[in-house]
């Protein structure tokens, strides 16, 4: 094969059409075929000769690449004038084109606009040749002042090492990258003092001081310079205290983390790589306390799991995929048979907090398997106390989270036997929990019989003024998890720009329309400070009462503070339209009495009921 190819290469002769084309370009019109053939053979031979000589020059130039000058010198040798002005250090690409049964290789010459060249600034003068010495290898007993490298080691070569003189090609390359200079953020003395006080208070023994410190972290607007230090403080603290099983400190650190997250002026995304591992550790660590049978490390796991869920909600994007990565981590260790009960608990808690969808797809299908495992511990004979406690906690956790979800996805009649077949060991208990959940939901709908809108602004103290006067301000409280009915979560209560020092004045217009009756409108203006006259928009009576209306208006031109208006229109459930209010929860939707809806803004007294009940 190779030989055949070689022959072909050797006996290639330029086609006579090329000769014709060249002749035409020189102004010779009609060239006879014989002359063309004779010429092409001659030209081919000469070209080969020149190419062979050119190779010689390439070899002596100690290069691997043939350059245009390598062609010029053989021409010179043969007393032929070289092709002046045809210089290129680079590879000259030949384009290939075929068409009309002819194949053509040509050199693409771009038209160059001279004025462009003239107007562009001169390129940098190429760097001059410089010399650089690199030591490759060194013998131990040498007297030369070189540092030792073991023989056989590869020369780290021309890339590394510093140029002896001049700038090097590599240095030039580095310049192009233009590394951002590393700036150190020095803390002022005050900040250093503050940091010291805060961290000491956070992990100290005085609970009052801690509350104050956490409050400060959660509300102070000027902490972003200290954020890297706080982040490191937390991650390092968790690392150290997990090893020492210091439950109290771990809890303090998690609370600190929570406070950081609650601070609207801080944006933690850049520090998640430090913070999230710490949080996960607090969720799933095998042992978090010295006496696992006595200490309530379960609360820490729950708390951290909630923290994790919150950060997933806030920071998960399609690029960092935090939520899916976290979910995978939890699922993986949960599925492992050797996982201990503590970790198992953490995984389940972490997953459960991520929402009903996660529970539905990941936890409920595994209830049977988990039931078998719990049964083995509960009814087994030789089981350690710790395992029993662990299993017990896992069981109650599963019941707590799954019951509400099952209540929603299963049709009403709850038969114990059916539950047993579906969910195994946990079935009966689950059944009773589900029944309880259903009744509770119904009860709630009846007793509350009004839509409860809970708005928790993370930072500002809210002053809610309402015509009904049912307002309460809870600004002094430590902010807790935002508890907003899911219909409002789209409109994040967080300010859009987290660095903005003061929150925008927010205005909620809640309009409740009763079927057929005149609409009642309530305008709630939530604002911490009166910047400008709040734009109060009054929605006139809706022409078609069955039209649900959810409208977001932003207040116009209120200076530096954009005004947000939330208009929530709630319609009676009798209307056939599937409005956004459906999301407010089964209780409201199914309630037949919700004709007259009042809005009540209140501080959440018992978060648990609000976080769970709407779903």
């Amino acid at each position, binding site marked *: 094969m190779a030989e055949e190819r070689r022959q072909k290469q*050797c006996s290639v002769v330029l086609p006579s059409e090329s000769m014709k084309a060249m002749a035409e370009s020189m102004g010779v019109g009609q060239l006879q075929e014989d002359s063309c053939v004779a010429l092409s053979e001659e030209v081919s031979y000469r070209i080969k000769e020149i190419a062979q000589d050119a190779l010689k020059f390439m070899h002596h130039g*100690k290069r691997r690449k043939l*350059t245009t000058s390598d062609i010029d010198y053989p021409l010179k040798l043969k007393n032929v004038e070289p092709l002046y002005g045809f210089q290129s250090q680079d590879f000259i690409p030949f384009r290939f084109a075929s068409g009309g049964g002819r194949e053509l290789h040509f050199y693409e010459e771009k038209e160059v606009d001279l004025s462009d060249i003239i107007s562009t600034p001169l390129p940098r003068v190429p760097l001059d040749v410089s010399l*650089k010495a690199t030591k*490759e290898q060194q013998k131990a*007993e040498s007297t*030369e002042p070189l540092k030792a490298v073991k023989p056989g080691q590869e020369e780290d*070569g021309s890339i590394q090492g510093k140029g002896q003189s001049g700038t090097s090609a590599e240095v030039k390359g580095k310049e192009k990258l233009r590394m951002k200079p590393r700036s150190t953020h020095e803390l002022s003395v005050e900040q250093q003092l503050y940091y010291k006080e805060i961290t000491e208070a956070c992990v100290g023994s005085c609970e009052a001081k801690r509350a104050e410190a956490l409050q400060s972290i959660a509300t102070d607007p000027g902490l972003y310079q200290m954020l890297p230090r706080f982040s490191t403080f937390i991650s390092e603290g968790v690392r150290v205290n997990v090893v020492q099983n210091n439950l109290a400190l771990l809890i303090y650190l998690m609370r600190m983390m929570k406070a950081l997250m609650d601070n609207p002026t801080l944006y933690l995304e850049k520090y998640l790589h430090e913070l999230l591992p710490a949080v996960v550790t607090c969720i799933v660590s095998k042992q978090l306390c010295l006496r696992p049978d006595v200490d309530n490390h379960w609360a820490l796991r729950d708390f951290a799991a909630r923290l994790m869920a919150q950060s997933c909600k806030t920071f998960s994007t399609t690029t960092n995929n935090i939520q899916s990565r976290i979910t995978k981590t939890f699922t993986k260790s949960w599925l492992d048979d050797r996982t201990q009960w503590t970790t198992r608990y953490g995984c389940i808690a972490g997953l459960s907090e991520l929402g009903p969808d996660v529970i539905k797809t990941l936890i409920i299908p595994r209830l049977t398997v988990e039931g078998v495992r719990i049964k083995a511990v509960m009814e087994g004979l030789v089981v350690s106390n710790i395992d029993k406690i662990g299993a017990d906690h896992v069981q109650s956790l599963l019941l707590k989270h799954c019951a509400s979800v099952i209540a929603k996805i299963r049709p009403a009649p709850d038969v114990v036997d059916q539950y047993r077949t579906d969910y195994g060991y946990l079935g009966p208990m689950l059944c009773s929990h589900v029944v309880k959940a259903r009744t509770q939901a119904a009860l709630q709908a009846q007793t509350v019989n009004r839509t409860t809108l809970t708005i928790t602004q993370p930072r500002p103290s809210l002053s809610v003024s309402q015509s009904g006067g049912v307002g309460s301000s809870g600004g002094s409280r430590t902010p807790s998890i935002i508890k907003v009915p899911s219909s409002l979560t789209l409109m994040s209560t967080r300010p859009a720009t987290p660095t903005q020092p003061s929150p925008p004045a927010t205005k909620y217009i809640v309009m409740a329309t009763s079927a057929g009756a005149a609409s009642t409108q309530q305008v709630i203006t939530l604002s911490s400070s009166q910047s400008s006259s709040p734009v109060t928009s009054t929605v006139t009576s809706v022409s078609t009462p069955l039209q649900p209306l959810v409208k977001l208006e932003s207040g116009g031109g209120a200076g530096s503070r954009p005004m947000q208006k939330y208009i929530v229109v709630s319609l009676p459930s009798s209307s056939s339209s599937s409005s956004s209010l459906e999301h407010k929860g089964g209780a409201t939707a199914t309630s037949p009495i919700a004709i007259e809806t009042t809005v009540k803004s209140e501080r959440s007294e018992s978060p648990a009921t609000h976080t769970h009940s709407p779903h």
Partner: protein
Amino acid sequence: MAAVQDGGSELEGEKEPKPELMNDGSTAPAAAPSSRPEDQQTLLAVLQFLKRNKLIESVDALRREAGLADEPEEAPGSEAAGGAGGAAAGSGELGDAGALLSRVSGGSQSAAAPAPAKGGDDQPDVSVVLSAYSQQGDPSLYQVYYSGLKKFIESVLDCHRAELSQLFYPLFVHMYLELVYNNHESEAKSFFEKFNGDQECYYQDDLRVLSGLTKKEHMKGNETLLDFRTSRFVLRISRDSYQLLKRHLQERQNNQIWNIIQEHLYIDIFDGMPRSKSQIDSMSGSLAGEAKREDNKTKVYYGLLKEPEIEVPLDDEDEEAENEEGKPKKKKPKKDSMGSKSKKQDPNAPQQNRIPLPELKDSDKLDKIMYMKEATKRIRLGPESLPSICFYTFLNAYQGLTAVDFTDDSSLLAGGFADSTVRVWSVTPKKLRKVKSAADLGMIDKESDDVLERIMDEKTASECKILYGHSGPVYGVSFSPDRNYLLSSSEDGTIRLWSLQTFTCLVAYKGHNYPVWDTQFSPYGYYFVSGGHDRVARLWATDHYQPLRMFAGHLADITCTRFHPNSNYVATGSADRTIRLWDVLNGHCVRVLTGHKGPIHSLAFSPNGKYLASGSTDGRVLLWDIGHGLMIGELKGHTDTIYALRFSRDGEILASGSMDNTVRLWDAIRAFDDVETDDFTAATGHVHLPDNSQELLLGTYLSKSTPVIHLHFTRRNLLLSAGAYNSQ
């Protein structure tokens, strides 16, 4: 051309065994005899020119004068030339210049009578040479002849087959050329295509040249073919195999092939066992077959010269120097032992004054002392203690670095560049300074002790100096041993001598009209050798603008030149894949070393002068015993052209640097020992190489993207290497 010059230089050798060079070291007008054959040629050319232009009177006048002058010398001269040219049409009888002229211009008609007439032939040599191809055979039968021979060779016993297979390539080439010459174009093409696949892979480069050549007209200018024709292809075949071949050809009456063998091949018949395939392969590969055995019979004085008599001043000055250092006694016994060693006359060494060498200056003596001192601190290298390697990388050379040299004391480094510049760097903290201008020098107190320091212009101190003067890429640079001069050879055909005191060009030696690929100073200074595209190596002395010797014989470009450590011999490597060793004294070629399969790009003599290492484009290093003219080792490992070879100062390690970005270290002692323990059958010249490259390879050191183009061992055996960083 080459053939005539070859004859001429031999002639000169016979006539002038002792050139004037011998009598007086400072002046050496030996150029005169060497140019004599050239004169003859020039004369002929002039006569021809005059004749063509019908200037008969001038012709007569010139003939009268030249004829009278040249008559006594012409007969043998023309004989030699004629013999080499292959057209010995009774040239011996021709007496006067006119007859000589007719031999040259009319030679083609008389000798090549059957050949078709060649009109406008102004290259007498070529036509004479080519006319030998004029025999007419049936062109269609060539393929039959060749395949018949092929069949025969394939059918003979294995032991003969390898030997007879050597015939394939030269026969193939000559038959093809005959076909082309006789205008059987299509037959030639089909012949080529049918059989070129049979040839050994190492002939591929030549075959490529051959394949391009399809017309008689092409043959005229093609030097490679001319060489192929003028030099008989040499084959070494055992007597048995030869008889076998002869019988076969006679039986078949295969005259065509027999004629070619008779006319174009030189078969060197030896008695004894036929050689094996590997033995043949190791020696073949050159453009003109193997070296003839008698080519390598001349005695070579490869020993080192006695160290010059600097013992006495050395001791004095050395003691002074040592006193300064404050440890005089420690070193003295060592020095004595060294002195006594060098006093012993090496039986293989040439006469001390065989070649006149420049007298040592005081500064040289000082340098020698420095050398001795450094030598005592030298590290003994070996497989256990490998040298450190320091790599000097040229940055931003834009692939333009073409040559590098270090001074012997490793204080200066010179680089030749494709942009025609030569740059000199100081690699020590000491900066390069120019001497002050003449006006300023006049104001210096010449009696002061530090006059040498005062003449330097402090303002010009810099790390690097650029020397401008060439008009083409600089392919060779070489420092003089005393560090006062620098030589550079360039594409523009000149060799330039630069002063490192003033950093200016002193002389441009013109003689090579084509690119000069390499040049090197003699280890004793004063002489230097150069070789280039014109296939003639020239020996020069710095104070003569004409070459002292011309070494002609290579069939292709001379790619590298090296002086033997005793300065009596010069080795040249060539693109014809041979290495030749030339005697500086008489210009004879004393060794022809064949075995490389590609152009040779590096040569290195071992410090004891006994061995030669050579590296080529095929990535192999071959080791040669100079005394016996034999290949004694093959070092395989590199994957690309080897541009640098160097023995360590004591000859224990051979370092090779290549285009493949590696430096490799080889165990030289073992490589030579292994051979000497063998039964050294120098008489037969049959080499049997041990395949032990891997055992001899002591280390491979890779650079990232920097081809190694120069290597140098410092006086303390630190290995310096240099190359240009290749960013692509």
